[in-house]
């Protein structure tokens, strides 16, 4: 843990600065992607956004700003009406090659109620035909990472909301992804549970050299987690401003109560208010 910190901390710091960020290879490039739904609603105006490898980017904005739509586009769950996306510099057809994997974590735990925690976490491996012995070891590792090793034989209904979300994250980690796409994963949880999961997620990202794109409508969550916050506005959905959170990792509760944290939160609050106003002007 100490080692990881020593090795990565300067790196992460420099990622916050503009020039160094450009030096890192991009994981995701959104190139003028626009989305108009079949009912005529313009969910996203053409958007340009680059997420570099190793970044923790949050998409923050009022509801209806298209942040979930953008994330689903990055997950290739929906296609842009015009413009395009690149994954690790190539098109989606190459995702999964040379270990470049992405995984999507839903807003709800989305667990199979008929399967035990272990069965749920195993699912992606079963679908990919990974042999049982290898799969078991990976499932054990993923469960240990999220602290659910004692609950592998429980059914989802026997777990609390926070634990169900942990199981969902374990299922995402079991495929050993490079890129984690999370759509308001802790939105339905109480604040104490959410803070704990935010902390654990951040530690995980820090240790595993993951890239994370995280959708939230919580200012505090976005400041605490991100290397960079992308503030979005609604009608049509667009990027309003990008705010780099210049604070070294690992971050803990001390950061939550610091002056710096409050200052960032205040800036984002102002931006969000602006996002809402400019959205209203478009009506």
């Amino acid at each position, binding site marked *: 843990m100490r080692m990881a910190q020593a090795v990565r901390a300067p790196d992460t710091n420099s990622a916050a600065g503009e020039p160094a960020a450009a030096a890192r290879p991009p994981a995701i490039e959104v190139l003028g992607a626009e989305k108009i739904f079949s009912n005529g609603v313009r969910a996203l105006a053409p958007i340009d956004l680059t997420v570099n490898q190793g970044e923790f980017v949050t998409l923050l904005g009022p509801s209806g700003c298209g942040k979930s739509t953008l994330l689903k586009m990055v*997950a290739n*769950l929906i296609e842009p009406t015009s413009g395009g996306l690149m994954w690790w510099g190539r098109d989606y057809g190459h995702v999964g090659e040379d270990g470049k994997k992405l*995984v*999507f974590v*839903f807003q*709800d735990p*989305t667990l*199979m*109620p*008929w*399967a035990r925690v272990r069965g749920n976490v195993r*699912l*992606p491996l*079963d*679908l*990919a035909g990974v042999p049982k012995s290898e799969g078991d070891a990976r499932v054990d590792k993923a469960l240990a990472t999220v602290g659910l090793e004692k609950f592998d034989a429980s*059914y989802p*209904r026997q777990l609390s909301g926070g634990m169900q979300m942990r199981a969902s994250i374990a299922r995402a980690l079991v495929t050993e992804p490079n890129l984690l796409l999370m759509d308001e994963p802790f939105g339905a949880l109480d604040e104490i549970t959410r803070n704990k999961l935010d902390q654990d997620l951040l530690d995980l990202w820090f240790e595993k050299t993951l890239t994370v794109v995280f959708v939230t409508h919580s200012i505090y969550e976005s400041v605490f987690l991100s290397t960079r916050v992308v503030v979005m506005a609604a009608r049509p959905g667009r990027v309003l401003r990008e705010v780099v959170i210049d604070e070294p990792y690992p971050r803990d509760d001390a950061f939550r109560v610091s002056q710096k944290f409050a200052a960032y939160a205040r800036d984002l609050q102002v931006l969000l208010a602006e996002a809402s106003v400019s959205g209203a002007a478009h009506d």
Partner: protein
Amino acid sequence: MAALDKNSRILGIVLPILVGIVMLVMWEGSVRYWQVPKYLVPSPVLVAQTLVDQWSLLFDSLLVTLKVTFMAFFFAVVIGTLIAFAFAQSKLIEMSFFPYAVLLQVTPVVAIAPLIIIWVKQPTAALVVCATIVALFPIISNTILGLRSVNPGLLNLFRMNKATRLQELVRLRIPSAAPYFFGGLRISSGLALIGAVVAEFVAGTGGTSAGLAYQILQAGFQLDIPLLFAALFLITLTGVALFLLMVTLSRLALGDWHESELVPET
């Protein structure tokens, strides 16, 4: 709290039995007091007596009815499930054929039974066909509903993990459909019995079968009302037994996870 829970479970068994005993005693008492003739309303004791005396006759008939019921139920489950899978695979197939499944459902079996009995020479087979038609629809409609009632998030998850159609069916659609399927089983098992009895009523007048419905018809003609009651009692008992069997099956299959089978924790 646990003790109370256990008590209420015992009460759930004891109270209905008490009510049953009280009603039987009142029935017996009334019949004796007003000296109701046995060809109108036989006393429970007399019905029990008849059940014992005519046991070999009734038991043979019971076996015939059970055989028809179970065969019809079996065919209804197999055919109904296959049809549901075909419908669930393609919206086009469902659009083309579903109205005819409804047609089959809304046509009273009594109305088509004579036709089937003419077409199908073998008497038992004719009865099975009638009862199968009656029992088929709940299996089809419930299983289709179940196969369609897949959590959209889970479906997305499967698609994102590049699941094949077969994996999606076996690992997602079938488990999702299970609670609906077992609901269909409960309805269908009762309908199979009803179908078997009704079909025999229609066919039995020809003197081709000797199921419980036939015994009821014969007993009616001969004004042997105690025998009629005894046969009726056996049919009811069969229906209850079938229902309990389905409840047990459902509990075994879903008890671990599905809300319908969970005992609320106190």
